C-alpha cells in the first residue's frame, strides 16, 4: 500500500491563507485545512494517485475548515471515482449537494479551421462584401443626390438651421487646423523643391512648383482628407448614436424621412463648407510659399506677389476649387451612409466610423487621380 503523508506549508506569503493538508495513510485519509481555488492544485497532486487505487477508500472531511466550489467539484470527482467522503460538516453539506447534483458536461471544442482555409474563406468573404458595399454605395449616393436635388427644387424642404449649424461645425471650426496644415504643406514642398532644383540652378522655380501644386492639388486634397477625418467621421458617429437609441426609427414612425432631415442638411453644408475651406487653404498655402521664398530664395513678399500672376493662371485655381464640392458630396454621403448602417450595438458605431473614414479618403484619392487624367486630356 502506498502511504501518502503530505504536509505542505502555507505556500504564499499571506499568513491568513490556509493550506490543504492530507494526513493519514493507506485507505483512510483525512483532509485538513482549506480546500479552495488556491490550494486545489496541491490537494489534487497529493490525492490523484491515491484515488485511482480503487474502491473502499475514504476521505475524512471533519477537519476541513474551508471549502469552495472548485474544491467541492474536486471532491465530487473523487466521490464519482468511488472514494467515500466521511465526516462532512453541516456547512459543507449543502455546497457539496449543490455541486454534485449539477449536470456537468465539458466545454465543447471550437471547430478548428486550418490556416489556409481561413485565408480562402476570408478572401471570399472580402470579395463578397466588397461587391455588396459597392452596390450599397452606388444606391445610397443616388438616393442622397436625388433627395438633395429634391430639397433644392422645393426650398421649403431645406432646413436652414441645421445647415448653418453643420457649416459652422465642419467649416468655421476647422479653419485653424486647415490653415496650419496648408502652411506646413507649402513649407515641405518648398524645401523639397529648393533641394532638388538647386543643382540645376533652377531654385527660383520653387515658387512655380509650390504655387501650382498648392492651387491645383495639395490644398484641396489636404482639406478633403482633413474634413473626411474630422467631419465625415462625426457624421457617422452622430447618426450612428441616433441609430442605436432608435431615434432614426422614431423619425420614420413620425413620417419624417431620415434622408431629408439627417442626410440632406449635412451634404449641403459640407458642399458649402469644403470649397470655402479649400479657398482658405489656397491662401494659406500661398502664404507658406511666400515665407519659403523669403527665407530660402531671398525673394521678398512684394516680389513674390508680383511674380505670382505670371506663374499661375486662373485655371490652376479653378481646377482645384472645382473638385472641392464633389469631394464634399462623397465625404458627406459616405459618412451619413455608414451612420445609418449602424446596428444597435455601441461597437458598431466605432466600426462604421472607421469604415466611413477609410472609404471616403480612398474615394477622394481615386477621384483626384481620375480628375488629374481628365484635366490632362482636356488640356486645362
Amino acid at each position, binding site marked *: 500500500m502506498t502511504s501518502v503523508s503530505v504536509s505542505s506549508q502555507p505556500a504564499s506569503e499571506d499568513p491568513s491563507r490556509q493550506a490543504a493538508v492530507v494526513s493519514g495513510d493507506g485507505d483512510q485519509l483525512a483532509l485538513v485545512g482549506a480546500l479552495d481555488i488556491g490550494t486545489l492544485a496541491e490537494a489534487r497532486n497529493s490525492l490523484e494517485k491515491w484515488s485511482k487505487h480503487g474502491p473502499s477508500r475514504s476521505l475524512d472531511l471533519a477537519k476541513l475548515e474551508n471549502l469552495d466550489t472548485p474544491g467541492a467539484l474536486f471532491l465530487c470527482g473523487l466521490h464519482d471515482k468511488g472514494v467515500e467522503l466521511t465526516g462532512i460538516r453541516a456547512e459543507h453539506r449543502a455546497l457539496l449537494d449543490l455541486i454534485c447534483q449539477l449536470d*456537468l458536461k465539458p466545454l465543447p471544442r471550437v471547430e478548428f479551421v486550418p490556416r489556409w482555409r481561413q485565408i480562402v474563406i476570408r478572401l471570399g468573404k472580402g470579395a463578397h462584401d466588397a461587391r455588396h458595399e459597392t452596390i450599397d454605395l452606388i444606391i445610397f449616393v443616388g438616393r442622397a443626390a436625388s433627395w438633395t436635388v429634391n430639397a433644392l427644387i422645393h426650398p421649403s424642404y431645406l432646413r436652414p438651421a441645421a445647415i448653418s449649424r453643420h457649416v459652422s461645425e465642419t467649416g468655421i471650426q476647422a479653419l485653424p487646423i486647415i490653415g496650419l496644415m496648408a502652411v506646413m504643406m507649402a513649407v515641405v514642398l518648398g524645401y523639397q523643391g529648393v533641394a532638388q532644383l538647386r543643382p540645376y540652378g533652377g531654385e527660383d522655380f520653387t515658387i512655380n512648383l509650390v504655387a501650382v501644386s498648392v492651387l491645383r492639388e495639395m490644398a484641396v486634397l489636404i482639406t478633403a482628407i482633413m474634413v473626411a477625418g474630422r467631419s465625415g467621421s462625426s457624421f457617422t458617429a452622430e447618426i450612428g448614436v441616433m441609430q442605436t437609441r432608435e431615434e432614426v426609427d422614431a423619425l420614420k414612425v413620425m413620417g419624417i424621412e431620415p434622408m431629408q432631415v439627417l442626410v440632406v442638411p449635412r451634404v449641403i453644408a459640407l458642399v458649402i463648407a469644403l470649397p470655402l475651406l479649400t479657398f482658405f487653404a489656397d491662401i494659406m498655402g500661398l502664404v507658406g510659399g511666400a515665407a519659403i521664398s523669403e527665407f530660402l530664395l531671398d525673394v521678398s513678399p512684394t516680389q513674390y506677389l508680383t511674380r505670382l500672376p505670371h506663374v499661375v493662371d486662373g485655371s490652376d485655381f479653378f481646377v482645384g476649387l472645382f473638385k472641392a464640392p464633389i469631394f464634399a458630396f462623397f465625404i458627406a454621403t459616405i459618412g451619413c451612409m455608414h451612420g445609418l448602417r449602424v446596428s444597435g450595438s455601441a461597437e458598431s458605431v466605432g466600426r462604421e466610423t472607421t469604415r466611413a473614414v477609410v472609404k471616403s479618403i480612398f474615394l477622394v484619392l481615386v477621384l483626384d487621380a481620375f480628375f488629374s487624367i481628365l484635366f490632362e486630356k482636356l488640356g486645362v
Partner: protein
Amino acid sequence: MTARTKAHAEPILAARDIVNRFGKQVVHDKLSLEIMRGEIIGIAGGSGSGKSVLLKTLVGLHQPDAGEVLLNGKAVQSIGAAEKAALIGVLFQQGALFSSLSVAQNIMLPMREHTALAAKEQEQIAAMKLALAGLPADSGIKFPSALSGGMVKRAAFARALALDPKILFLDEPTSDLDPIAASGIDALIRQLNDGLGITVVIVTHDLTTLFTICGRIAVLVDGKITVGTANKLMQSDHPWIHEFFHGPRAEGAMKARNMSHGN
C-alpha cells in the same frame, strides 16, 4: 429559507457615515449600512436616489467624499487587488461581459489572473460555474453578442462567481428580463445563497425580488437609508416608503411573496 433565518452575528461589510455629493447636490448624507454574513439584502430607492453610486462606493469603485467602507474589517480602498477579487463579485447591470472573449474565457479570466490553476482545471471550473448559473455547457464557446438578455445575466453571474467571492453585488439583476427569466434569476440567487452561503447585496427596483428573496430591505430615500424587513418597512410612516410598499405594484409583489412562502 435556511440562510435567511440564520443568525447574522457579524457584519461582513460596514459602511459608516458615507457622504457623496455631486456639485451642490448631496446624494448620500452620512448614511450607514451594515451587511451581515450570509444574508440577502435588497437596496431599493427611486430613480436618481443614488443606488448605483452607493453600490460603487461599497465595492470601492467610487471614493466617497466622507466616511468609510469596511470589508471584513478592513477599509475597502486599502484591500489589495487579488484579495478584493476573492472577496467581491459584481454583476453589472448590462452584464459587462468582455465582448472579445467567449463566455468561458470571460469566466476564466479572473482565474487566469489570480490563480495558478492549469488551463484544463480552469475549463472544468468554468463548466461548473456555467452549470451553477444554469447555462448549458455549449453556451461556453458562444460570444456575449450571441446571448439573449437572460443568458447574459446568467453568464455574468457565472463570471462574478469565478473566484468564489464571499459577497456578491447585483446591480438590477432582473431588469430587462421577462418574468420567467426574472423568476429564474431570483431562484438562482436564493439557491446560491443557500448552497454557497454567499452574502448577496441586490440593488433593484423589482418589488418581487425585494419581497420574495431579500431578508432585509434597505430603502434609500432623501440621502438616508432605512433598513428593515419588508413587514417592518410596510409600517413606516415616511410618505415615500409608504407609497413604495403600498402601491398597486407592491400589492402584486406581496401576493407573490405569500405564494412563495406558502402562507
